[in-house]
């Protein structure tokens, strides 16, 4: 991804929330997981990742706790809160709506 635009920032929130919904992870793991699952198409820039994580934390959609990684290092792990789960559903729904709409217009015969 190039410079994050507004549209992309909203999408980044969705990606983070979805990724975390599978289990608590730290920032590095989130970025790697997104890269992995999107088959290297989406590369998250650190410059946008951490501010986004902190914003989501301020909104109390994700909660942070310090824990240990597999290698025994201390890292800040983020997990989804109940409110975050609701927000995730909302974002998914609006993404569906948006992408359907774009598809309709782009593919119109």
């Amino acid at each position, binding site marked *: 991804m190039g410079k994050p635009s507004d549209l992309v920032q909203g999408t980044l929130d969705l990606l983070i929330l979805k990724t975390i919904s599978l289990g608590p992870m*730290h*920032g*590095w793991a989130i970025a790697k997981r997104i890269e992995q699952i999107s088959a290297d198409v989406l590369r998250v*820039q*650190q*410059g946008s990742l*951490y*501010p986004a994580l*902190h*914003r989501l*934390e*301020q*909104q*109390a959609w994700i*909660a942070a706790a*310090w824990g240990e990684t597999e290698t025994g*290092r*201390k*890292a*800040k792990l983020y997990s989804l*809160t*109940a*409110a975050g789960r609701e927000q995730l559903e909302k974002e998914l729904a609006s993404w569906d709506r948006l992408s359907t709409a774009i598809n309709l217009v782009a593919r119109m015969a």
Partner: protein
Amino acid sequence: MRSADKVRLRLRSLFLRPRVEAELAAELSFHLEQQTAENIAAGMEAKEARRAALRLFGGFTQIQERCREMRGTRFIDELVQDLSYAVRTLRGSPAFTIVAALSLALGIGANTAIFSLINALILRPLAVQAPDRLVALGDTSHTGSLSEGSVRTDIFSYPMYEQLRDHNQSFTGLLASGRSGRLRVGTGGGAAAEPARGRIVSGNYFAVLGVRAVRGRTFTAAEDRAPGGDPVVVISHDYWQRRFAGDDGVIGRVLALNGYPFTVVGVAQPGFAGDVVGAPTEIWIPLMMQSQVNPGRKYLDRWDTSWLLFLGRLKPGASLARAQAEANALFKRSLTTYAGAAIPPQIMPGPDVKPIEASPGGAGFSSLRRQFSQPLLTLMAIVGLVLVVACANLANLLLERAVVRQKEIAVRLALGAGRPRLIRQLLTESLLLAVLGGVLGILFALWAGPALLRLTGGSSSVMPLDLRPDLPVLGFTTVLALLTGIAFGLAPARRATRVELAPTLKENARTVAGSGGTGRWPVAKLLVVCQFALSLLLLTGAGLFVRTLQNLERLNLGYDRERLVLLKVDPVAAGYTEGRLDAFPLQFLDRIKAVPGASAVTYSENGIFSGTESADGVSLEGTPRVERGIAIASDRVGPDYFQSVGVPLLAGREIGPRDRKGTTLVAVINEALAKRYFAGRSPLGKHLTIVGPPEDTVFEIVGVARDVRDHDLRGPVPPRFYTALAQSTSFASAFNVEIRTANPGALVKPLREAVRGYDPNLPVEELRPLSAMISESINHESLITKLSAVFGVLALLLASIGLYGVVSYTVARRANEIGIRMALGASRESVLWMVLRETLFLALAGVAIGVPAALAAARLVASRLVGLSAHDPATLAAATAVLLAVAVFAGAIPGSRATRVDPTQALRYG
């Protein structure tokens, strides 16, 4: 749940900042390490791996900054930063901080003190329930008035109260409140009676106001039933604490009010001091007991005895306008319903009588309010201007400090601090100073306010106004402090940050000749010029007030004010009836004449500066008769009145001992009456008729007396006529005795003895030298004068300190130039003149602006001046001269320092 979490996070960011920052740094480094590890695993060598990782990261500090922004506490963070920095800076220069804080404290404190007086007297509502729903009927300044002879619309009679109370639709309740007159309270047990402040009120008084009792009960409607039937009183909480030490046994106690026994049935809630602001009530007496409290005087059954003011509580949905219209309609209806027998035509209000006025009653009644409104507002303007002058000084001081801190500011700007952020931080310093000044100012006001009251009020032990700083006062002080801080801080802050970076940052930049340096000059000089202009304004004002006061004190009143003692007694209250009252004047006079030192004694109904006045509808021979006559002020006097008081007669003779009952009725008129109605002709022998009821009384004019001032120090003397009390059919409503003596002060005690010797039960209402009474009436005049003089001098002092600072700085900066001049042969005098020239230029510029400002401002206070015009040139010239003299002095000090500059030193270090 979610909002609780959000708040918790915010608080954590605020208070555990270091921990939060450390966590963020740790988190980001962790990520960096992982990325580096990945790079190494991909085959890069260690150093390259780390550098690549960093590049990918894209700026550690920026990411940290953005994360901080996300936390949402940036504003508070920065504020805390600014405040702690400001505290450190101010602590670093204690002298400056102390001087600045003290001058601010003085300026803000003076403003707060005056405002708290204004708040207590004019703005604050009564301590009752929902004061905004109260409506006052009548003239709210007539709190102690009593008028007989006609039906009035500015104060009311009891019969009129009954009408309005029983037939109105706008109020849930209408209360009446009137003066109690002199109250002497005997608590029994042989102790002497003490004076107390009372108020006579209707039974629904406490109910309408929503005031409850903390002991016993308040009045009920039962107290309004039978005249003389309920000798009960309610006392105020203050009085209960002060006089009865808060004793619960006060309920049921019997107090003798003017000799009549009353039982205390209740103590009012704390904080409630009645409906009159400036005269807190101690004892409330039911209306029905009026004639018991005022022996010999019955007010309740007469339509033409007006002494009550009303407060009504509006029904929901009713408006003030509707209440006013209804009151006037009921008033007119009562007049027509009862016209004839109960309201005879002669006491009907005239056709030009003003309608009943309804006004918001939340702030109660006050006679002081009208008196002191203008003086207080004038004082407010004066202290406001002094504060402006003080601010200008502070602004200059801050500008100087800014020059010293240029390097620091340049470094910070170069490091990337935003200019607005720096301005905000410098402004925080000023605001902190201002808040400090504000807090000290409140403390100063706590002392100054009551001190001012003592100066105006005299020595009564009950402080007439409650000056505790409540919310409006604190709010005022806070707003004033903040505005002040911005006023003197903003411009210097903006100027300080307008620094050219490169030249300032150079190694040996001392004082910079860039925009930060010389740019300062016009501003500082402008400020000093404005200060001088304001000082001239204040000095001129003070000068005008001082001369007015002098004129008032020296005012020729028409008689010898230094040799008169006034004695007022109340035989009616002592129970004297007809026969005794007839003989009283001459008997009493003889007794007083016998006092050694009394060279002449006489009496009059309305006295001199006694507060009462009469007027009669009069018809004069030679002028067309008007229905009800022309209203002219009058007085009924004793024999040889004019000679005793010292008023010369311009024509004819005065009222003498031979003018008694049975002889021709005589009158003496004053100059003003003669001029207005008998211009050109001799009034002697002509007739003056007091028009009806019951029928006309004809007097022969036997003399013309010089105009005298006996009620008012200001304004023209109105026409007046005097008749003989001895020839009159009714006794005087008040009895004033005027005694001429060489030494008034010494006669007070012997006179009191004489009265007690004549009749120990005869109450003495007043016994004072006339000069003391006149001093009291110009009391608040002299207060304004003294204060304006003090503040004028203070402003001039502040302005000259400012001038001194500016000129000193010039001299310091130009030390180089001065050194060169002196080395080239310039004399000391020419150097001194150079400095003084600058000084005079600034001062004269201030005068040029100040003179028109002073003239304009003087017009605002022209109505207070006596004996001189608002544009009095002598005062203006004197103020200007003082100003210039002080300016020259302020400039001469640095000037003489300049002459002592050692040329070699100056050249070396210049």
